[in-house]
């Protein structure tokens, strides 16, 4: 019971703090609107916010899908090809030195004001954590398992793909799951940055519009919807990876779990 109440109590505490700051500093609504004003804006603009949210969520999901596919392909390419390791790996690492946000205007220029440029943006931020996490996981297969597979298949080349699939890939799943969770956490950043730079729809676009018109309450409402979408995305990915990794004993969960609840 207390486990259900705890996040609600935390939320209530944060709302009280927010209200307290508004009162204490007597802030005008266009600087920091009180919680009830934001709640009113949420209700008033519910339809609009829902439409914008569907755009942003679609961008996040498609970015996550394509970014993960691209990242996983790169990881597999790095694993099987020494040429890829020599040429692609330094390029990958160097590419992360370029701030992806600086590329946003270019992406909008090349891919237009529609969803494509935002999906590209999300892909760019998702690709790297997925590729690196999976590549690391694929390289760290327990040596004994590979020895065993080596003897079982007499090291015949026609069986190597099955060793990759049944042992290396499965053993890399926990690392891949970590990469995927980071990707889920950064996907909203990619989509919203893309929308800030140039868009005609989406929560990020609506926030910029509201900001320009000093509709600070609407801006906060859009921010809350965005946060809820981002948390839902993360929770969804977390649930899927947990399901895939049911075999993995989760020692951390028992550390965090409260024995009294």
């Amino acid at each position, binding site marked *: 019971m207390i486990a259900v109440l705890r996040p609600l109590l935390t939320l209530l505490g944060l709302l009280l703090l927010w209200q307290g700051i508004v009162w204490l500093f007597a802030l005008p609504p266009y600087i920091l609107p009180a919680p009830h004003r934001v709640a009113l804006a949420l209700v008033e603009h519910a339809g609009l916010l829902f439409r914008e949210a569907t755009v942003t969520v679609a961008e996040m999901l498609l970015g996550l899908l394509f970014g993960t596919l691209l990242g996983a392909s790169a990881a597999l390419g790095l694993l099987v090809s020494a040429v890829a390791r020599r040429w692609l790996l330094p390029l990958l690492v160097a590419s992360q030195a370029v701030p992806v946000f600086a590329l946003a205007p270019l992406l909008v220029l090349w891919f237009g004001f529609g969803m494509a440029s935002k999906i590209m943006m999300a892909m760019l931020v998702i690709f790297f954590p997925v590729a690196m996490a999976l590549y690391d996981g694929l390289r760290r297969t*327990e040596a*004994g*398992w590979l*020895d*065993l*597979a*080596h*003897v*079982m*298949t*007499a*090291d015949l080349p026609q*069986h190597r793909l*099955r*060793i990759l699939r*049944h*042992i290396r890939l*499965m*053993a890399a*799943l926990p690392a891949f799951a970590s990469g995927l969770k980071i990707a889920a956490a950064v996907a909203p950043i990619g989509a919203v940055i893309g929308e800030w730079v140039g868009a005609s729809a989406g929560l990020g676009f609506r926030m910029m519009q509201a900001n320009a018109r000093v509709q600070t309450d609407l801006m906060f409402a859009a921010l809350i919807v965005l946060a809820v979408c981002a948390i839902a995305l993360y929770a969804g990915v977390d649930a899927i990876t947990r399901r895939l990794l049911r*075999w*993995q*004993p989760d020692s951390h969960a028992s550390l965090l779990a409260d024995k009294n609840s």
Partner: protein
Amino acid sequence: MPVDSLSPVAPNPPAFRLEGTGFAYGRHAVLAPFAFDLGTTETVAILGTSGCGKSTLLRLLAGLLPGIHSPWADKAAWMAQQDLLLPWLSLLENVLLGARLRGEPPDTARARNLLARLGLADRANALPAALSGGMRQRTALARTLMEDRPLVLMDEPFSALDAITRIAIQDLACGLLADRAVVLVTHDPAEACRLADRIFVLTGQPAGLQQIAALSGPRPRDPLDPALLPILRSIHGALKLAAGVA
């Protein structure tokens, strides 16, 4: 000093002539050239101090050393000190791993039968994490037998188990491996005396094989049999000599 004790080796047609040209890690020669015959149903134990090269010898036979082709690799099954069970597969799926990796249809009935003979019939669908160390190593034994190869290479397969569990699994393994040729690498002289037909000690730098004893009679032997005492003594002598603490 080789000690021929008890009676000569029981007649046993040699099935394998296991030999190697030695092995070096870089400039450091680990293993001298070696050769020995192994009967179709014979168990040979190889003893040695830690780091003497006995695992290297077994890996050489299994084709696990880089750049060295082993002509026995496709006739051998491998069992290591760790159970090497894949944590995402059930016991049954782990026992069937070889077929899965070779793309062969799985012989589920035989796998279940093997698990049953090792007392794991009701755990066939459990994940390895839910089992004790002894049960996991019994599953590893079932997986080794499932491979159905004439030569079984065992690298200290029982050394991570407690004494009582170890004796129980030694008995099981001895019965189930009776019709195969076995090379058992171990650091435990008592285990060698219980399970082996012939006992070698790996000594020297680089390490070479020295036959210590040839034993007869049914296996597994009673570890408290006084007739084994002189053999244990000569193994200890050879091992101490090898370790330089004579």
